[in-house]
């Protein structure tokens, strides 16, 4: 890394819905690394709130469940108010690795990009950890995103991203549910933001698999994406 990074200027946004069982273990390494952590509790029905009450993280709670995209945007708006310089999107189920954060930040710090996408298909070896059927669905997702948004990435619906302050402030997510991943691409294109990808590892634990979206949900996402293109 060419320039020194003050981790207090980095805000890690974690949308959480019923992750009380695991959230402390996901947050611990992030806190230890010195990042600002913003947890957006999307009206969880479990004990997420008490699980977090003793941790030095920002805790925001939606009064009603709105969806992952909405929770992400809430966290981004809040982090920008707090003066965040860099923003990381991070999943609450423990499938991302905190050590990958500096890798994602590097192009931002060197001012080569405004937004950096994590990809599980850039490095040989990362790919093998992805279950075969999921790989197929993601390949289809990559294609759909390419056709609809004009941006071709090596991965789709990877929740691990890094944005600089300018990009985070200009992108505004209106898709409350999962279609926000495609929506980000649409806005990156429209706002002419500079983007790039970096390899990140994904951990498919039994827990993250059980929490992950079912393949059928891909059709819901597709529907949301198409509707948005049609009626704005």
């Amino acid at each position, binding site marked *: 890394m060419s320039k020194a990074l003050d981790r207090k200027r980095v805000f890690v946004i974690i949308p959480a819905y019923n992750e009380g069982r695991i959230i402390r273990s996901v947050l611990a390494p992030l806190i230890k690394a010195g990042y600002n952590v913003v947890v957006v509790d999307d009206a969880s029905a479990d004990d997420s709130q008490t699980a977090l009450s003793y941790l030095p993280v920002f805790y925001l709670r939606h*009064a009603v469940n709105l969806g992952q995209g909405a929770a992400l945007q809430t966290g981004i708006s809040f982090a920008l108010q707090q003066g965040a310089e860099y923003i990381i999107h991070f999943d609450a189920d423990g499938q991302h690795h905190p050590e990958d954060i500096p890798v994602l930040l590097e192009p931002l710090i060197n001012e080569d990009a405004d937004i950096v996408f994590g990809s599980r298909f850039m490095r040989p070896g990362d790919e093998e950890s992805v279950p075969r059927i999921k790989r197929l669905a993601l390949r289809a997702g990559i294609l759909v995103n390419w056709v609809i948004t004009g941006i071709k990435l090596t991965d789709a619906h990877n929740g691990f991203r890094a944005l600089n302050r300018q990009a985070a402030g200009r992108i505004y997510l209106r898709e409350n549910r999962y279609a926000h991943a495609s929506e980000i691409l649409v806005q990156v294109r429209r706002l002419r933001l500079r983007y790039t990808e970096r390899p990140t590892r994904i951990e498919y634990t039994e827990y993250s698999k059980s929490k992950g979206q079912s393949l059928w949900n891909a059709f819901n996402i597709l529907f949301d994406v198409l509707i948005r293109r049609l009626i704005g």
Partner: protein
Amino acid sequence: MNLIQLTLTLISVFIVVLYFAKMRSQLLDRIVVMTLFIASLVTIIRPDLTTTIAHYFGVGRGSDLVFYLMISGLAFLCVVLYIKIRKLEETQTVIVREIAIREASRGQYRER
């Protein structure tokens, strides 16, 4: 006037009265509702008129024409309602987000 005509007339009148009693809407909406109301009354009292109009459009029976128009109308209504619901969702999101940001808290680190 036979029984079905009476029933349909009462339903139409009920819907329009309900609309004007409960809704404060724009002039355009009111004109549309009144037009539909009058059209329905006319077709209830003189059903044969729909057949005349249907022939003009190249449709054999009046009830078929009414059926086609009804399907189109309902489809249109679905789209309008869908857009309205999305707008409502967006408004709700803004409110919920605003509250969440205002009431953000930061825990103190304490080993348990």
